[in-house]
């Protein structure tokens, strides 16, 4: 098999916000830059799944981004404090400070691309947020890339491993998904900007959030932290044509959709969200409702988990047919800047309203995985721990959001990308070009499933992985189910070395792509399940039915995973009081902890 070689100072892997910002930033420092993306830039990656808005603090929105009406009470310090408390204190305070300090300039640069590309983002002064949607965001990123034409862009190339020389990153291996031709990227430094991992059957994210960058970093000698923390939001289960849409989350916001559903389990029993002033959130804190919903509704869903799994209803039977139809028309009208008339993305909202009405005015919903807080362990310069020359930016990293993301992933990726690009360019400036010492081994690992005639199908492997995570590693957890999931993921991972494909073609072979992705996802899932099993408390999105308390006395630390051969090993990493002191209080449950520490309503 021939191997194509692409050479540059800095290689950026990824196709969305973090990757584009990192590539532009590295180029600006004088580095030659290659960007390799599994899909098309600005048309792939979790960035384009944005459903609503993103923001920064009000002071910076006015001073740096030129929004005169931005809420000045939402200060930099308030945002920083919110990040620390929302992370349930296990975030890296240096990264949280970096987010506050670096995001405004990066957002301002993006807003320039938005304007130049003729796209529209609408600023909401009170919450200090910009409303947008995936398509205009992607268009802005493509514009940003286009205006930096010296960046060598390789699209539809699936990067499968970081290559190393004596433990230092020196490029990556990948293949063109259309031709199947292998590509060797030679670079003095490498930036992972590949997004997070979502190991469940119900997702509202792009199709391949398989933790590629996290797994690549682990295999290269790096570490991953906080892998047990995964964020969920209401996502459509039925009707099938709308499955995977995050509309239910938007419909839960009264300002966007007036009818208030009664939320019930599949037997019609109401799931309770207490009407308690302690749980009321301010406009800048609305993301906290994501966690409240999984916590309060999840309690009731968990009682019937074995019977119904991850499913419940939004019940609009208190409203007349026309009220429901009109509410969807009003919602559609509010979205018309970014979506086709009457639509939210692909969904015809009038059709959906009709189907809800004919289904007893109920919409079948589950909590779908939106984002993973955990990821590659990095330092303040976004250098990956343990692998010189390797950097990471955006959702692929861990450490910023700790146990719960209340800040914005879109803002994160821009801020991270800008700094990671600078750091990787600086590293490349002083580094020599090296030949990888693991190229042959990693190419053999990649191509092995193509050569086997019998073995586990990647399709079945992925189905098993989703099933075991759906059952035992979802948003509500207990020791018994986690222990089973841990045994199951271990057994599955042991079989993945023997996968075989139905078709040996190298040309657009989905099974071949999935053979890589399932290995990546299994590595991520195993590290997450292990940490979830060992974390005998609740914290952020890690909701333990058998350990409801937030135990800052015994569990105020992160689990960091690394590989020894093919075996995952774990270490505890305590957060540092770099800027704010740590609170050692034990809270009886997640809701009380949120009320007292994040919302300060108590």
């Amino acid at each position, binding site marked *: 098999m021939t191997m194509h070689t692409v050479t540059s100072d800095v290689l950026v892997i990824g196709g969305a916000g973090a990757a584009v910002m990192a590539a532009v930033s590295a180029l600006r420092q004088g580095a030659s830059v290659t960007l390799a993306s*599994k899909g*098309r830039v600005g048309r792939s990656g979790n960035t384009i799944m944005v459903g609503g808005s993103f923001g920064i603090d009000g002071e910076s929105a006015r001073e740096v981004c030129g929004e005169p009406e931005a809420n000045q009470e939402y200060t930099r310090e308030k945002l920083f404090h919110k990040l620390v408390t929302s992370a349930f204190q296990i975030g890296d305070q240096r990264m949280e400070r970096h987010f506050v300090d670096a995001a405004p300039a990066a957002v301002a640069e993006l807003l320039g691309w938005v304007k130049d590309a003729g796209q529209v983002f609408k600023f909401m002064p009170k919450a200090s947020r910009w409303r947008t949607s995936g398509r205009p965001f992607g268009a802005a990123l493509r514009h940003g890339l286009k205006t930096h034409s010296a960046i060598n862009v390789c699209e539809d190339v699936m990067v499968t491993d970081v290559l190393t020389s004596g433990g230092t990153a020196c490029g990556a291996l990948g293949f063109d998904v*259309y031709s199947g031709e292998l590509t060797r990227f030679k670079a003095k430094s490498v930036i992972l900007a590949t997004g997070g991992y979502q190991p469940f059957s119900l997702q509202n994210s792009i199709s*391949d959030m398989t933790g590629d960058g996290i797994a690549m970093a682990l295999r290269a000698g790096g570490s991953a932290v906080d892998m047990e923390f995964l964020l969920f939001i209401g996502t459509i289960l*039925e*009707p*099938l*044509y709308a499955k995977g849409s995050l509309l239910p989350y938007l419909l839960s916001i009264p300002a966007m959709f007036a009818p208030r559903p009664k939320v019930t389990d599949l037997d019609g029993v109401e799931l309770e969200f207490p009407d308690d002033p302690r749980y009321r959130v301010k406009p800048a804190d609305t993301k906290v409702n994501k966690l409240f919903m999984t916590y309060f509704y999840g309690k009731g869903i968990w009682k019937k988990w074995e019977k119904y799994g991850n499913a419940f209803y939004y019940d609009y039977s208190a409203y007349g047919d026309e009220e429901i139809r009109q509410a969807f028309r009003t919602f559609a009208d509010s979205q018309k800047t970014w979506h086709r008339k009457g639509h939210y993305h692909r969904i015809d909202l009038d059709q959906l309203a009709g189907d809800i009405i004919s289904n007893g005015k109920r919409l079948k919903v589950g909590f779908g995985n939106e984002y993973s807080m955990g990821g590659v362990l990095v330092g303040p310069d976004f250098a990956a721990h343990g692998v010189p020359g390797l950097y990471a930016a955006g959702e692929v990293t861990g450490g910023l959001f700790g146990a719960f993301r209340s800040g914005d992933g879109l803002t994160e990726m821009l801020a991270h990308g800008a700094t990671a690009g600078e750091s990787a360019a600086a590293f490349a400036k002083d580094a020599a070009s090296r030949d990888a010492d693991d190229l042959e081994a990693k190419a053999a690992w990649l191509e092995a499933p193509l050569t086997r005639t019998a073995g586990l199908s990647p*399709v079945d492997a992925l189905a098993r992985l989703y099933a075991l995570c759906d059952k035992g590693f979802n948003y509500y957890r207990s020791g018994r189910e986690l222990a089973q999931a841990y045994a199951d993921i271990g057994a599955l991972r042991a079989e993945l070395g023997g996968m075989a494909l139905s*078709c040996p073609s190298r040309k657009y072979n989905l099974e071949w792509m999935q053979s890589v992705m399932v290995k990546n996802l299994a590595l991520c899932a195993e590290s997450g399940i292990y940490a979830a099993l060992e974390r005998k408390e609740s914290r952020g999105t890690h909701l333990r039915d058998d350990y409801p308390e937030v135990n800052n006395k015994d569990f105020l630390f992160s689990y960091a995973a690394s590989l020894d051969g093919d075996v995952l090993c774990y270490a505890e990493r305590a957060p540092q009081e770099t800027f704010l002191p740590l609170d050692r209080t034990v809270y009886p449950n997640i809701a009380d902890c949120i009320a007292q520490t994040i919302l300060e309503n108590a």
Partner: protein
Amino acid sequence: MNVRIKKSDGLKEYQVPALSPSMTVMDILDYVYANLDRSLAYYRHSACNQGICARCAVKLDGKTVLACAAQVPGDAGTIVIEPVSDKVVRDLVVAS
């Protein structure tokens, strides 16, 4: 329903059950791939499945559609899915 797919080695026919009163073309292709023919090549990597990325275009009964957005009634008799252009890489996947 009978689903005829123009693969690189000829027209193949598959029997797909009505999983819902209305399915997207992507639902149908996913079913065929997972249950009937894992050699099928159709655009599925880094796909948004929400009509955002616009990369899953195919021809449905001769008309160009996005597979993730176009709906087919569960009781449709026979449908034909073909590549969107002549630049076929394999089966339903075309060069971009």
